[in-house]
């Protein structure tokens, strides 16, 4: 403004004679004084505090609403489905089915997720999980921001970093169904407990991370002795970029705890994730986990294992497709002699459409051969159309 003004005055001055020049010079100086005065006022105004007294709006945490709902079709009646058992793992009537339970429409959950830094030292995350008739603190923990020696500490209620899928929230899974082996060993919430977590990142070029956790051990499927904190978890994870586009992530985990008979349960886990990035929006990801449990029951020991493997092809920003295979591979326990308990498997496939990053429609089909209903093996066909949205300030997901 000032520049153009002076420039135009200067230019026009060339057109005038010398006698008029002094007059123009004087006017120019007056203009300069006026401009300076105006600038001063503007500057003063902009530096004045204009926020409301005591307002703390700027400190509001990041908050997001996550909604998950579905339409389900299944060739088993609801009243029969809720009694299902998985031989060797889940007794009739013990199955907890929080998601996609009813044929027809389900509102699975509304989740309120909050993240904020507390101060220079801590960050807090909480996730309030709301079912239609239930309030649950899914997670609520503080974590450190600035511990020395590449250490990281987390305390509160959180999902354990055991294995690969355990720490992930349902809305960030590639399939809406939980892997059978996770459901069988831990139930729908997987290993999620009050406790503390300590992780260390090695100072190597290759990613190597070791972590230990002490937890209460309230998960009754595998643990459940909560007289004191009875669950200890350890894991080692490593990742290598084989090319710029192809990366490998692998992990070994162990969970050592006390079960409801006050004897020990050990669960060993091995996981791999292979990812080929095809372009910015397209990738091929193979993820597989194997879990093996020794559950000492005093007189006998249950020795069981199972795995899942899923392959997801992200076609572009909008479309993905995937297949998953689940199996119980070892089941040395007291099985009912009348029922054939071999070949406990499930096959799944999904097709996903994301209009935008924060909304997702997913159509899934599964053929489930792991369930017993009314005392006999029952193969279940299931189709789920789910809608998931994340609205508000929802942070990016980790790898």
């Amino acid at each position, binding site marked *: 403004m000032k520049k153009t003004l002076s420039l135009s005055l200067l230019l026009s001055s060339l057109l005038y004679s010398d006698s008029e020049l002094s007059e123009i010079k004087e006017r120019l100086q007056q203009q300069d004084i006026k401009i300076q005065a105006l600038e001063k006022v503007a500057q003063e105004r902009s530096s004045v505090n204009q926020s409301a007294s005591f307002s703390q709006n700027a400190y509001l945490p990041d908050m997001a609403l996550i909604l998950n709902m579905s339409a389900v079709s299944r060739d088993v009646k609801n009243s029969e489905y809720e009694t299902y058992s998985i031989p060797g793992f889940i007794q009739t009537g013990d199955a907890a089915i929080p998601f996609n339970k009813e044929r027809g429409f389900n509102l699975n959950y509304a989740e309120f997720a909050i993240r904020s*830094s507390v101060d*220079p030292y801590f*960050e807090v995350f909480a996730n309030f999980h709301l079912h239609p008739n239930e309030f649950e603190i899914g997670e609520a923990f503080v*974590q450190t*921001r*600035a*511990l*020395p020696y*590449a*250490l*990281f500490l987390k305390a509160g209620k959180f999902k354990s970093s055991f294995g690969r899928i355990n720490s992930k929230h349902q809305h960030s899974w590639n399939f809406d169904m939980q892997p059978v082996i996770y459901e069988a060993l831990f139930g729908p919430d997987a290993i999620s407990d009050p406790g503390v977590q300590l*992780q*260390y*990142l*090695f*100072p*190597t*070029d*290759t*990613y*190597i*991370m070791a972590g230990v956790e002490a937890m209460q051990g309230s998960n009754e499927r595998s643990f459940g002795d909560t007289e004191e904190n009875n669950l200890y978890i350890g894991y080692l*994870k490593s*990742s*290598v*970029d084989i090319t*710029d586009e192809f*990366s490998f*992530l692998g992990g070994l985990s162990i969970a050592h705890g006390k079960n409801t008979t006050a004897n020990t349960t050990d669960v060993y886990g091995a996981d791999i994730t292979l*990812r080929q*990035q095809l*372009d*910015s*929006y397209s*990738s091929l990801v193979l993820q597989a986990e194997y879990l093996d449990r020794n559950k000492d029951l005093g007189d006998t020991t249950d020795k069981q294992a199972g795995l899942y493997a899923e392959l997801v092809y992200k076609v*572009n*920003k*909008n479309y993905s497709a995937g297949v998953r295979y689940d199996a119980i591979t070892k089941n040395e326990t007291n099985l009912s002699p009348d029922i054939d308990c071999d070949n406990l498997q499930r096959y799944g496939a999904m097709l996903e459409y994301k209009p*935008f*990053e*924060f909304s997702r429609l997913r159509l899934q089909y599964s053929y489930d051969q792991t369930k017993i209903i009314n005392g006999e093996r029952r193969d279940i066909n299931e189709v789920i159309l789910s809608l998931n949205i994340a*609205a508000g300030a929802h*942070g*990016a*997901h*980790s*790898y």
Partner: protein
Amino acid sequence: MKSFLLIMLLASLGFASVKVEATYASLGAIAKKVGGDLVSVHVLASSQYDPHFIVPKPSLLSKLRRADLLIINGGGLELGWLPPLMRSANNGKIQVGAEGFLDISHFVAMIDKPNSVSRAFGDIHAEGNPHYILDPYNVLIIAKAVAQKLSQLDSQNMQTYKKNLANFTREWHIYLKDLDKNMLTCKDKKVIQYHELFNYFLKRYGIKSYATIEPLPGISPSSKHTLKLINLMREQKIDMILQDVYHEKKTAHFIASKTDAKVKIIPHDVGAAKGSETLEDFYNMIAQRICH
């Protein structure tokens, strides 16, 4: 043993270097100019990819874990991938608010600030257009900010950083003079672009961008919007489509076939297109491809 320790000590002093992680290649290139031999620079995101969507690979954690300084673009560009990495890198030195964290967007005047902010308008950035690296004049501002930060972190080498900055600034002014001269012939060109990626460059050199191929930021093209674009281009006689390296190119070529416009592949970052590996080559390539 003693002499061995002494050698080790001398060696460590001799190679004392500030480990810098930059989120994008152009920031890394500028940091290298200012830091010279005193810094080692690594870039987190490959410039082949959409800068908004970088895969937060665990291998990046090993880099961040050992960094003394993290330089980010800011303005929301890294929002979709960097925060979870920073949380898991277990490095207090580079967290937001720490001394080793530098958000360049705090130094740059951002354009295209939206009047109202809602995700109903797509993936908009409340802080303004974050692709400010496309303005070659911003290189000077970035270099200055990096030099200040390095002087603060590694104060014993302050004079060297000052000297490097002065040298680079001088070189860059000469370079800009040349670039400006070359761009004079390009004034008043009319273009459309895939995403509002090149606005800073276009604004700097008086080139008008009429529309984007994506209907809203971050939303894939629709046939309805594409038809509208074709009509607009015919009416306004727009004959150039600026296409980045990472989006699909089908739509641009389709529009070109209906309008006789030319599709130009423009790098959005240092190294995004072959032959744009240095800062000078990067801006030269943009200038050359838009002007000729």
